[in-house]
């Protein structure tokens, strides 16, 4: 009977055709009504996304990265035409601009640009603010267990001096420039040190540090918090806002912990919003950035993230915790905070050789 002979074929055709379409087209993308956001994990209030989706009748597709290098790698490999908004940190901004991976902003589409604080209107990493709009800013300091170190010094020595911490596991950050900065600061070269001599000395210190029995490993800021609460480490490097967010989520686990900015100097960073050079929907990207620049939305973002807002107009709406340390560092601490220098060319090569030496030894 031809009918029953035909049936299996029809069935397989029914499953095969969509599959074929799937394989050829990949996910259909770049639809007019979608915004592709490439952000750090858990760095965005879902309510903000909902509000934006509702106002513009669009869908926001979020993708996440865990480190700057990861984001750059993804952009370099095609992401440049897949994402509408990315959130790099200050010292990656010049690299993105120089490599042509991002497009200049059309400031006529950013009606709330005036809300940005004066300090961030003309930042060193992006003169004139032509390519980037600040998202949040914060600091990288030391987190530690206050039971283990009741008299912890306000100093990098908690990590780098074996006499200060002979017995308990500790970690340093996995991002080379962040950790080398700490070592430089401890050695008296300043957190934003550059140049072969300072770096070489810092690298030596780090190799020695790695050799200590109590060295736990290279752990980036956010996982370090988790490790601190579980006792995997008793001191590590982390970010002020994440520290507060974790503490708020799990007051018990973080009861005996503290965050401090070492007196030798530490990092201040700014995460920014940028638009990739071939963004599928740059109009919507501008709309999204402008949306986040609105006073109340900007405040909502900071209230959710526990990070300081670069949005001057947002100030009245900020939770009280955001106006005091450690979110808003004390004046003294502010004096000691530095941006990580953005490296390029030979300087970058030298740094990378030293850092890979530290990692491989």
């Amino acid at each position: 009977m031809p009918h029953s002979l035909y049936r299996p074929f029809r069935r397989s055709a029914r499953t095969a055709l969509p599959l074929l379409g799937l394989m050829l087209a990949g996910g259909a993308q770049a639809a007019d009504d979608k915004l592709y956001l490439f952000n750090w994990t858990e760095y965005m209030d879902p309510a903000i996304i909902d509000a934006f989706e509702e106002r513009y009748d669009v869908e926001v597709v979020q993708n996440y990265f865990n480190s700057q290098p990861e984001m750059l790698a993804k952009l370099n490999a095609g992401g440049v035409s897949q994402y509408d908004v990315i959130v790099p940190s200050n010292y990656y901004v010049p690299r993105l601009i120089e490599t042509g991976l991002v497009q200049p902003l059309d400031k006529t589409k950013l009606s709330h640009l005036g809300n940005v604080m004066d300090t961030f209107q003309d930042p060193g990493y992006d003169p004139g603010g032509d390519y980037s709009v600040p998202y949040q800013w914060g600091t990288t300091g030391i987190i530690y267990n206050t039971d283990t170190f009741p008299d912890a010094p306000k100093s990098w020595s908690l990590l780098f001096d074996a006499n200060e911490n002979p017995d308990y596991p500790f970690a340093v950050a996995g991002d080379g420039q962040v950790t080398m900065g700490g070592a430089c600061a401890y050695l008296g070269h300043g957190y934003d040190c550059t140049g072969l001599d300072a770096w070489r000395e810092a690298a030596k210190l780090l190799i020695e540090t790695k050799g200590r029995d109590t060295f736990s490993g290279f752990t980036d800021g956010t996982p370090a918090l988790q490790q601190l609460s579980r006792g995997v480490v008793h001191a590590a490097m982390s970010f002020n806002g994440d520290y507060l967010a974790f503490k708020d989520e799990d007051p018990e686990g973080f009861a005996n912990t503290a965050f401090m900015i070492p007196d030798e100097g530490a990092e201040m960073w700014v995460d920014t919003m940028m638009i990739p050079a071939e963004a599928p929907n740059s109009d919507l990207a501008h709309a999204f950035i402008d949306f986040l620049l609105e006073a109340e939305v900007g405040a909502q973002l900071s209230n959710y993230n526990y990070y300081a807002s670069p949005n001057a107009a947002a100030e009245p709406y900020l939770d009280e915790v955001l106006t005091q340390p450690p979110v808003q560092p004390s004046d003294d601490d502010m004096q000691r905070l530095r941006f990580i220098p953005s490296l390029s060319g030979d300087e970058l090569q030298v740094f990378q050789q030293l850092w890979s030496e530290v990692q491989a030894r």
Partner: protein
Amino acid sequence: MTRHGLHRGLRVFWWLTLLFLYLPLAVVVLYSFNASNSAAHFTGVSLRWYYRLMGNEALLAALGNSLLLAVVSSLIALLLGSLVGYGMFHHRWRRLGWLVVLIYLPLVLPDIVFGIAEMAFFVQVERLTGWLSPGLGTMVIAHVSFQIPFVALIVYSRLVGLDPSLFEAAKDLYASPWQRARHFLVPTLRPALISGAFLSFTLSLDDFVISFFTAGPESATLPIYIWGAIRKGVSPEINAIATLMIAAVVLVAVASLLLGRQRAGRG
């Protein structure tokens, strides 16, 4: 007496191995029911993380992507791979060195290099033709590429181990190659085909690095999502979704087992 001792020892060893294999999973399951947010202390039983899970669309989508990817890719790989394995065996007296090299290539490429190479290629093709933009399709292609050799090798190694006289007997028994394939090869190869399919499925669910580099904005798999979460600091939600995945895997396992039983009973 010594033989008895050996068997008892082996049984103990077997159970110890199972403990070794399941302990980490058990911990994940246990903490998914933890009432508190703490990852360090178990404070009581609660389902709150599962409730939170239901609202997390991205995570559920990632779960769906993972399963779809694993099923589709291992089916394609099973077909292509077993054909290659059989061809390699049947023509093993020919000069097939090039084929061997080709088959081993996916095995010797480190995940990370594999992923980067695929991604760069897909991006290039997409620029030229508009096809193969990163997404589930490109992930299926990449996964099949690393699954084929595993299936081929398992089938080949099974065939090599067979008594050559079996093939002669089959030739006498069945006239056409199709009959031979149906009544001799497939039944004989069934263990190899099953373990090939299992392995492909496993490899696909297991893969993180290659998926990561070939994924598009909307095709993140569970591992990609979870990796992000671990790097950011694990929330107990991850334990919950992992538990669901473990449960799903166990269900599939039991189902495949019962199915196999049924078929064996009938045959």
